[in-house]
């Protein structure tokens, strides 16, 4: 138990750094870093949502980026028609991603294992092709968003720092929500079904209903990340939903440390930083990223969080 103290300390330090970042970026006159870290925070939300089903429920969804797209297109399409108020855009995005996640979950959760991976991948691609075929909203080229969501009051999202703090606040809020969730009875059932499904069934838990709820919840959270991504980039594109994006989200979760809530956040930061560093070195950075991924899978399964701060007791799986 002696190492436990180091963990919260490092986390508080990280949080302090994040809180000071817009000031630092302005001080160093490097607005690029503000955008980069906002992007990292947005993907941290997406990775966190995936971890909820992947890390705690062993549901390997390979179509998770679809909800990023749904959130982004909800903002984009409404803005295209002149509706920029956040109190309309955001609920539409949340309800939309929740509804789609529920439908996909209803079909996909009839299967498990490798079938589940292939089906979620196929549904993700279906939505990708749907976005590509939306010619009225840019089709393949994507949809430019001229005005960011209007929240009203002092919250003007066209100011990069305001958007940054909003994203950070949402990430922290969702992190706390997830902490409560996985520790609650709901989380216990999901985790129990992961380690021994048959026993949980025998105990009388309606496993599929619990899993579907988790699946829909994760999709909804990722939809929120999509809303934020659209506001950050001023753009909604089919590329947000491409299956390689879903693959990257899985990589973030594994890289950071599956089944811990801080892990996927670290993973999102690490993967995007790695991509940024490699792409500044060479145009062909993916030729290095691929083998790095393979090496991580083969030799470093516990992830960054597991290496930095080994769990005080054996993981309960």
């Amino acid at each position, binding site marked *: 138990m002696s190492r436990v103290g180091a963990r919260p300390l490092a986390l508080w330090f990280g949080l302090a750094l994040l809180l000071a970042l817009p000031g630092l970026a302005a001080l160093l006159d490097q607005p690029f870093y503000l955008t980069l870290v906002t992007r990292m925070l947005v993907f941290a939300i997406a990775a966190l949502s995936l971890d909820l089903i*992947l890390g705690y429920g062993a549901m*390997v969804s*390979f179509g998770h980026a679809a909800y990023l797209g749904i959130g982004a297109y909800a903002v984009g399409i409404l803005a295209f028609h002149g509706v920029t108020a956040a109190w309309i855009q955001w609920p539409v995005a949340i309800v939309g991603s929740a509804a789609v996640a529920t439908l996909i979950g209803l*079909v996909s959760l*009839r*299967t498990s*294992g*490798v*079938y589940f*991976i*292939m*089906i979620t*991948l*196929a*549904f993700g*691609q*279906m939505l990708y*092709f*749907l976005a*590509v*075929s*939306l*010619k*009225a909203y840019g089709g393949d080229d994507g949809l430019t968003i001229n005005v960011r969501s209007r929240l009203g009051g002092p919250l003007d999202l066209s100011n990069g720092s305001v958007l940054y703090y909003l994203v950070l606040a949402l990430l922290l809020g969702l992190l706390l929500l997830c902490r409560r969730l996985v520790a609650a009875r709901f989380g216990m059932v999901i985790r129990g079904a992961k380690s021994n499904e048959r026993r949980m069934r025998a105990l009388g838990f309606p496993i599929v209903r619990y899993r579907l709820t988790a699946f829909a919840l994760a999709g909804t959270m990722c939809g929120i990340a999509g809303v934020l991504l659209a506001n950050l980039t001023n753009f909604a594109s089919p590329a947000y939903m491409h*299956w*390689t994006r879903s*693959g990257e989200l*899985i*990589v973030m979760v*594994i890289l950071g440390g599956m089944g811990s809530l801080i892990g996927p956040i670290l993973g999102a930061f690490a993967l995007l930083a790695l991509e940024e560093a490699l792409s500044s070195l060479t145009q*062909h*950075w*993916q*030729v290095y*990223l*691929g*083998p*790095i*991924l*393979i090496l*991580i*899978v*083969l030799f470093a*399964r516990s992830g960054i969080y597991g290496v930095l701060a080994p769990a005080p007791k054996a993981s309960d799986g």
Partner: protein
Amino acid sequence: MIDPQLLAFQALNGLQLGIMLFLMAAGLTLVFGIMNLINLAHGSLYMVGAYLAAAFQGWTGSFLLAALLAVPATLLLGVVVEIVVLRALYEREHLDQVLATFGLILFFNEAVRIVWGPNALFVALPEFLSGQVELPLGIIYPSYRFAIIAVGLAVALFLYLLIARTRVGMLIRAGATNRAMVGALGVDVKLLYTAVFGLGTALAGLAGLMAGPILSVESGMGEPILILTFVVIVIGGIGSIRGAFLAAVLIGVIDTMGRAFLPGLLRAAFNPSIANAVGPALASMLIYVVMALVLAFRPQGLFPARGA
């Protein structure tokens, strides 16, 4: 309302797509059935097959010669990948396999850009296949696409004979039913795995090189067909070659016919502006709807492997 000539033409196009999907699905489903490995990089091997054929054609000037060289070259690459990376993954969980083979895709997609440049390559049709054939009932069809159908059917027959009638096929079937027992009986399981993976790779390479002249040979060309192949396997049932064949033809025909005729049918039923907006979207989603329906009623697929 629909021209029967056009209908037959599109049906043959659907069959041709189905044949390609079968070549991909057969390899993927064998590898999954026997080694319990989900290989996302199967589409990359298809892409490499297409690139190698294009390169060999550039050197030799002959499509046939290029095809004859590209299949063993792709097979060789597949065997190297199996020995270097995949062998370590057989005992791992599916999530690890997905991630590592995802890494392979990133690598291959970028590697072909480095070797052959970012632009799509052009593969010329061999002269004797650039014309058209006249089929019974007066149907005119491009010879090359007809040749793809013929080659695919021949490969399907070959696979059937290989698996149902030979000793190697017996081992493959036994491996799919009970791997541990096959190993315990003294069969060199490692060699069997490499051979099966090589076979799957050669089939993917064959599909890729045949696709070269009708699609553009470019980085990332393997992924769309990989996703379709997953749909085929889910519908056909994992580990079943027969299921892969029937589901591949089914998906090929439904997808092609849907894209060709669904927008037109919608235009007849609704006003044109709605039909033009909804038609292509609906057509591109059609096979996924079929997949969802199949899963809703038969989660194990339409033609699951016997005894598995």
